[in-house]
């Protein structure tokens, strides 16, 4: 709003009028400030072109190809969609090992979770392991649950029997 009051032509010049009211306002401003070369309107036109180009550039950067003056919500959704796609693509690229290990390690810092060369080693070893185990479950899709495993259930049952035997005897 502050910019509009200080420089209304610059603020509104990049807009594509979408209503008769907007067109009326724009025409009013044009009449107020003239339209010849070197006039205030010319100055504003140059400035507004720059602003428009900047806006287009911003739109390209955030992947927004629609109307320039979308709602803020729409812009946020667009940014989120771009972020989502970027994350997914980056994940996919790294899965395909397109990122260097050193680059990955550098981005992740030298904290407690650094990977070093282990990622690559693990991948190679995985192949070895799969060959060694010959389908012993590596390629299956297991699922963990919060239910006690059969082993622990067996152990629990055994303990109960032992306790019952002990107390009974």
């Amino acid at each position, binding site marked *: 709003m502050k910019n509009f009051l200080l420089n209304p032509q610059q603020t509104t010049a990049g807009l594509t009028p979408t209503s008769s009211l907007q067109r009326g306002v724009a025409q009013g401003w044009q009449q107020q400030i003239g339209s010849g070369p070197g006039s205030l309107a010319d100055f504003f036109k140059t400035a507004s072109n720059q602003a428009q180009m900047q806006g287009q550039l911003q739109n390209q950067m955030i992947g927004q190809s629609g109307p320039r003056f979308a709602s803020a919500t729409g812009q946020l959704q667009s940014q989120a969609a771009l972020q*989502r796609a970027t994350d997914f693509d980056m994940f996919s690229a790294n*899965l395909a090992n397109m990122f260097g290990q050193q680059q990955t390690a550098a981005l992740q810092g030298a904290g407690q979770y650094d990977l070093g060369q282990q990622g690559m080693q693990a991948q190679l070893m995985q192949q070895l392991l799969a060959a060694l185990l010959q389908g012993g479950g590596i390629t299956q899709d297991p699922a963990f649950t919060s239910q006690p*495993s059969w082993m622990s259930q067996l152990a629990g049952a055994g303990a*109960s029997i032992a306790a019952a035997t002990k107390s009974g005897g």
Partner: protein
Amino acid sequence: MTDTAHVFAVPYVHNSPEKLELIVNACCEHRPWFDDPTWRDPIQRRTATVLYLSDAARSPNRLWEVWAGANLVGLLILNKVTVHTDAHCHFIFFDHKLANKRVLCLNAMQWAFEHLDLHRLSVEIPTYARALANFARKKLGFRYEAEARTPSWPKDAKPLSTLASCLGSRRHQATLYEGQWHDVLLLSITRQEFTDLHARPTIQRTDRPDAAVTSGTTVGTTDDGVHEELPPQSSADDSGSNPYL
């Protein structure tokens, strides 16, 4: 979401940008798991998180989604795998609830021992993550590297107490968290220790309400040196008031 929701883990499948976004957002909002310089910059944080997760997912069954009913509540990660020997476990729970994840973690550990033919599993926990360290030790059976274990060398060395091993089993100032350098605790569990522990009824006993993860020091009265704290010794440096236990 209630604590009674069925908790389960499934291998991550890279097929949905929306699901990945959910996971990455949750990771980025979770407590810092990278050093300050990476964590403080939102772009670096996100990039590092994506790369870290995708690195884990390069091999099948290394990155697991944890769900409680219809809610994504965490991740299980296995990395730094040395075949037939060792792997590093990472347990990340976005709902900050550890108590209802114990059996899930044990089942995951058992799966890792069996399917990766590991001799041991390791975890590294920064000293500021006390609750997680307690959970790993008291609920899952991890020990400090030197805790109550006979070293392979020197031959005449005796196992260390919990306190001594707590002080010795760490990487010194290995992570920068909120402007301070913190040590990282080194814990592990061997396959034999896990089997012995898993076969004991005491592993069920730790579900008692008075043995909550965030509770204070629990001094064991049994011969179980894994789930319970070792009895304090008489030496001066083994006082029972150590805040790290």
